Structure formats: structure tokens, C-alpha cells
């Protein structure tokens, strides 16, 4: 078998599609205009399979697989939008909204927040769970940007973009469970860290957790689309 014939055919939501070997379910679905919701995934960054919104059902398996990392195989039958999956997605979003202090009305990202949009798309109308109301800090020590932990959903896009694309790796995680937080350097103020001030983390942040101080109130949507382009340019070089 040569490379030329390594094409797989599979079924996603009753639609027959073809894919190259090694492609993820998510890639193939999006090529065919099948929408699978994601939060931690971002084109151009390595995948971690953490948000669990992209879980899909595979016929013949009782385990749900994250579409962002699960690769296709011949004859696979994928369901991306069953009632069960929709319920899990709503529950996961509900867990996120109740976990920290997401107050859309006063958020810099109101109107262009991926979490907010996702909740609307998934038909989340209210939160049944008690709000956790944790006391969290805001790090405004950086001259250009601010980190508001209240709005962080721990998707780790900032960690990955800084490590994988910028190569500075100033962001990482600290603590376990609910106490898990994003930190800069060895838990120092962002302003005093080795940050290169490139602003990539701000652009990829899906919520208002990371924002540009100069653009507050100016209704500036974030633009993470530079990543695939950047990767392509680097590969071409």
C-alpha cells in the first residue's frame, strides 16, 4: 500500500465522507460543514482533549471519543449530535458557568465570547447548579494586558500558544482540581515575567480572561485566525 491509497471513507451523521489517514474526526467533520462544538481546540495549536465538548459517539463502542484527537478509520460511523451528547454539552457548559464568576454584562468580551456563543448555540437557557463564587484575583501588572482569573475556563490555549508558537512558555498551570490556575513564570506577576509582549495569548483566549487594556470598551473581537497562517508560513520556510 502506497501513500496514494491511504484514503478512508467513513460516515459522520449519516453523511458519507472521505478522509486521509491520520486526520481527526473534527478535521474531517469541519471539511464537510458538520459542526462539532469545541472550546479548548484551536486550529494551529496542539490538542489536549480537555474541554470534552467535542465528544462524539462511535457505533460499536460505548466509549465517547474527543473528536479533536480521535483519528478516523475505515468504515467508522460517527454521530456528533445525539440527544445524549447535547445533554452532556449543556451540562459541561453549565459546570463552566457555575465554576467561576462569569458575569457577561460587565465582561470585556461580551458579544464576542466563545463561551457565551457556545452556550447560546447549545441552548443553555439557565444554570441549575449552585454558583461556586470563588474569590479570584485579577493580574493587571502587565503594561498592555490584563489577566482576569474570574473569566478563565482553563482551556490552556494561552499556555500552548506561548509554548508552541511564541516559544516563550511563560504560561503554565498550578494547583489541582478547582484550585487549578494559570500562572506566569513561577507564579510571579505577569508584568514581571519573561513575557515577550507579543499578545498571542490574548488573541487566542476564548473568553475575557485575557484582554488588551487599550481596547477595553472598543468592542474589539479577538482574532485567533492568524495561527494556521503563521504555521503555514513557518513550514514553507
Amino acid at each position: 500500500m502506497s501513500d496514494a491509497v491511504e484514503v478512508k471513507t467513513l460516515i459522520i451523521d449519516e453523511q458519507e465522507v472521505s478522509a486521509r489517514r491520520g486526520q481527526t474526526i473534527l478535521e474531517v467533520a469541519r471539511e464537510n460543514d458538520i459542526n462539532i462544538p469545541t472550546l479548548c481546540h484551536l486550529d494551529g495549536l496542539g490538542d489536549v482533549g480537555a474541554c470534552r465538548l467535542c465528544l462524539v459517539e462511535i457505533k460499536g463502542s460505548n466509549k465517547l471519543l474527543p473528536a479533536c484527537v480521535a483519528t478516523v478509520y475505515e468504515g467508522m460511523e460517527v454521530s456528533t449530535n445525539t440527544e445524549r451528547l447535547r445533554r452532556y454539552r449543556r451540562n459541561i457548559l453549565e459546570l463552566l458557568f457555575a465554576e467561576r464568576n462569569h458575569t457577561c454584562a460587565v465582561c470585556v468580551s461580551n458579544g464576542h465570547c466563545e463561551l457565551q456563543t457556545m452556550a447560546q448555540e447549545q441552548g443553555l437557557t439557565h444554570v441549575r447548579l449552585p454558583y461556586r463564587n470563588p474569590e479570584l484575583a485579577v493580574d493587571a501588572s502587565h503594561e498592555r494586558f490584563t489577566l482576569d482569573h474570574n473569566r478563565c475556563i482553563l482551556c490552556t490555549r494561552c499556555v500552548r500558544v506561548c509554548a508552541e508558537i511564541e516559544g516563550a512558555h511563560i504560561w503554565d498551570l498550578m494547583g489541582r482540581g478547582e484550585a487549578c490556575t494559570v500562572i506566569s513564570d513561577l507564579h510571579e506577576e505577569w508584568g514581571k515575567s519573561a513575557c515577550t509582549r507579543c499578545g498571542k495569548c490574548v488573541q487566542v483566549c476564548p473568553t475575557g480572561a485575557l484582554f488588551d487594556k487599550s481596547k477595553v470598551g472598543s468592542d474589539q473581537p479577538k482574532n485567533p485566525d492568524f495561527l494556521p497562517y503563521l504555521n503555514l508560513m513557518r513550514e514553507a520556510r
Partner: protein
Amino acid sequence: MTIEELDQIAEATRAEYAKYDQEINVCMGTGCLSQHSDQLKDALAKQVEAQGKNVFVRRTGCMGLCAAGPLVLVDPDEILYQQAHEKHAEAIVKSLGGEPIKELQCDLREHFDQQVHVVLENSGVIDPEKIDDYIAHDGYRALLTALSDMTPNGVIRQVTESGLRGRGGGGYPTGLKWGTVAKATGDIKYVICNGDEGDPGAFMDRSVLESDPQRVIEGMAIAAYAVGASRGYIYVRAEYPLAVARLQASLRDARRRGLLGNNIGNTPFSFDVEIRLGAGAFVCGEETALIASIEGRRGMPKPRPPYPAVSGLWGKPTLINNVETFANIAPIIRKGGKWFAGMGSDRSKGTKVFALTGKITNTGLVEVPMGISLRQIIEVIGGGVPDGHKFKAVQTGGPSGGCLPESMLDIGVSYDALLKVGSIMGSGGMIVMDDTSCMVNVAKFFIEFCMTESCGKCIPCRAGTAQLHALLSKICAGNGTMEDLELIEDLCDTVKNSSLCGLGQTAPNPVLSTLKYFRNEYIDHILHKRCTAGVCNMKAEEEVPA
């Protein structure tokens, strides 16, 4: 080192011990050491000298009956003394050859007779810090036989034939796992021993590592030969200092004897093992998190596939098995896969070590054939619930196992049977609860454990366990509603099915199983503001007459 040399060492060691009339074995596992069995051993040695007796005093590993420690076994008369202390040393030595001391004697025939020791065959018998003791008990014979007389594939066939399944909890067929790693391509392969035993109330792996460390090293070396690996890691909890010290000493001794290192047994096979210490994270028992931890990264699980067998430590094919799994290997190679498959039940072969804790008379370590009923383990071997209390539930499989009621006690212990009734085999923790335990509170306790040990990577586990804990706390405080119960069930379903790793996927088990078998207790708490076990402190209790 060749088999002939091994035989010579074994002969010499046995001849050395044969010089003595009698042997006094003193348990020096962590349990008995905490009761100062080291002082007892010194005192016994002094008394033997003072009384001029020809007796050997030996340090051994765990004898199993930890609650009755320190334990002393006099051979060849097989007299077991319990709760023996320094002050008893003189009397014990005096009684040798005469009548045993009645007050100290421990007569628990039922406890021992029902057990079958494979993993624990040397525990409490050999000195864990002497490699020659291990060799005198057929140690390293399996490794050298495998190296000289068997192909790697032949080793895997024996393991497959034995029907051994992973003892860390997953129950994945060991032979199949070995075969996968053997087939994987890579310039270097690794073997990892998972000794990150983090379940509350579980101490099987600790005891094996403390009592018979060479057995685990031999198992790893055989595995390395079978899959084509050249380097091994033992990942142990830093909370097990004695196990770590004995492992370090054992690795050094094995290298000196030429049983680790280059060209083992004068064959081209080379293998060495390093120890890596855990830093106290429960989730690092999950294989991908453990691998991340060895690599020096934050211990967080990764989605599988790719499985470690294909891409594990530093992206290389990696075989990762639990301590107890490796401890089973040498006997399987020595006696054959068929012998092992002759024990146990239909799809769960061999024996399993359980750590019996909680409200049970004979707290300690037991090894039983698979398929034996829970009732036999708890009532016969464990001696039942003490102090006239009534048995209520047993939790198998650690913090993410289910709580099973009396009516379930007659099921045979096997991977599949336990899964069917809403629990898991887990690594072998077995916590017995009596009528003084409130099952809602128990569920709350275990979900709290999972909540604080969640790594925080995936949302269902991180936020879901926290919400479950809050809801259960609300019920325990007498403020719960029937709607909360529905919400708990919905959340449990989400956490169980959408979490990334085993921690989250099994975290709801204690809640789901108590809801299934002890629902009336939840309803009592919610509707009648009553905790029958008297554990939960409910403010509203006086206002609502029961």
C-alpha cells in the same frame, strides 16, 4: 550469573540457615515497625545470645495480619505470636523448644487456611533486604530460564496462557499488552512499574515492595526481555520510604549479582532499572499522567489512543504494569501459564491481594483465589465486623469503587462480576463499613477525595466533582431536596461518561452505588432530616419529628 551459580547461592544460603535449631521471624513491614518491631528484633537477638541458644532471628516482610502486630513467627514449629513487644523477648526465647506462650499466641487457622499465596509467597518468609534469601526461594530462576530456554514470544505465550489481567485496576489482559509492546517498533523501549498506590486504605503494593522487592524486579526484567526493552522505571510514592529504601538496596544487590545490567545471564540481554518518586498526586497512578511525571512534566493524563504501548515514555513504546502484576510473573514462568490459569474464576485467573480495612476484625493483607465470595473474605478470613456491630457495606476498589450491601456479598470476586454490580476490582482496597457509617457521608467523603485529587484538566471531573461534593454536603447538612437528587444523578452520568481519564470516569461510583443500594438513607436525610447512623449533624433534627 548462570542457573548453576544460582543453585550454588541457594544451596549455600539454605545450608547456612540449616545450622540453626530454630528460626524466629520478626515482621518488619511498616505496620509492625510502627509498633517498634525493630526493637523487638534487637531484644530477641540479645536474648538468644544471653540464653546461649542456637537460634536465628530474621527480619521479614509483612505477615499479613497487620492489626495484630508486631508479629513473630517461630519456625519450624509455626507458632505465631501477636502483639509481641520488647518486654516479651525474654519469655519468647525461653519458650523455644518447650511450650508456646499461650497469652501471645495467635490462632487464626481460618484466616490463613482460606488463602492462597502466590504474590505473597515470600512475604513474611524471607529477609527482604537479602537477595540470597530470595534466590534460596527460587528467586531469579524464572528470569535465567526465560533468557536461556525461552524466546521472547514464548514468554508472552506463557503470560497470555496464564490469563493474568492487570492488577492495577483496569484488568487489561497482561499477555495482550506485552504482545502489543513487543510488536511496536522503536529504537528503544521502556518498562515501567506502577507503584503509585494512592487509594485510601490500600497497601498491597507497598507490602509487596517492602516484603519481596526482588520479585518485582525479576518480573520487570522478564517483561523487558519479552517486549524488547532495555530500561525500566519503578514509580513509587515518596510516602513509602521503607519500600523505596528496600528497592534501592535490592537494585544495588541485583546489579552486584549480575542480575541487572549488561549481558544478564551471559546472554545479549541488558536491562537496568531506576526509581522515580511520586510527589503525592493520586492522578499520577493513571498511566499517561505517570509517564508525564517521569518525564518531569506536570502529572496530567492525556487522551488515549495513542496508548503507551505505541507512544509512551518520551514517545517510545512503553510497557506499564502494576507492582502486583509484575509480582505474578516469576511464578507464572516457573510453573507455567496453565498452572496459573488453573486458579481463579472463568475470566479472572489467579489470585488477588486485598487490603482489608475499616470495621473488620482482622485488618491486614490477604491473598485469595479469584472467584471467592466477598462474604468469605469478610466473614471468614476477615473475621467479620467487630464489637457486635452489624455489617452495612463494603467498598471495593478504592475511592472510585462502589459500596456494596449485604445482599451482594455472595458474588464471587472477579473483574466482571464487580463491574456488573456497580463497583470495580480496582487495585484491591477493601473497606468494610458497619452500622455506624452513614452512606451519604461516605459518598461525600470519597467524592471529596476525587475532587481534591482531580488534576483540573477536563471540565467534567474538575467542576463536576466539586458540584457533586457541594450537593452531597447540602444533603448531609439536612438542606437537600429531591430535586438535588435528580441533579446528582444527571451530573454523575455526565462526569462518568465525559471525563478524560479513569479518575473522573470512576469518581461517581461511590455516589451511584450508594444511591442504588442505600437510597433510603438519602431520602431519610432529605425528607425526614434524619441520619440513622448518627453521623451527620443536622440542625433541623429537633424541629421535624422522625
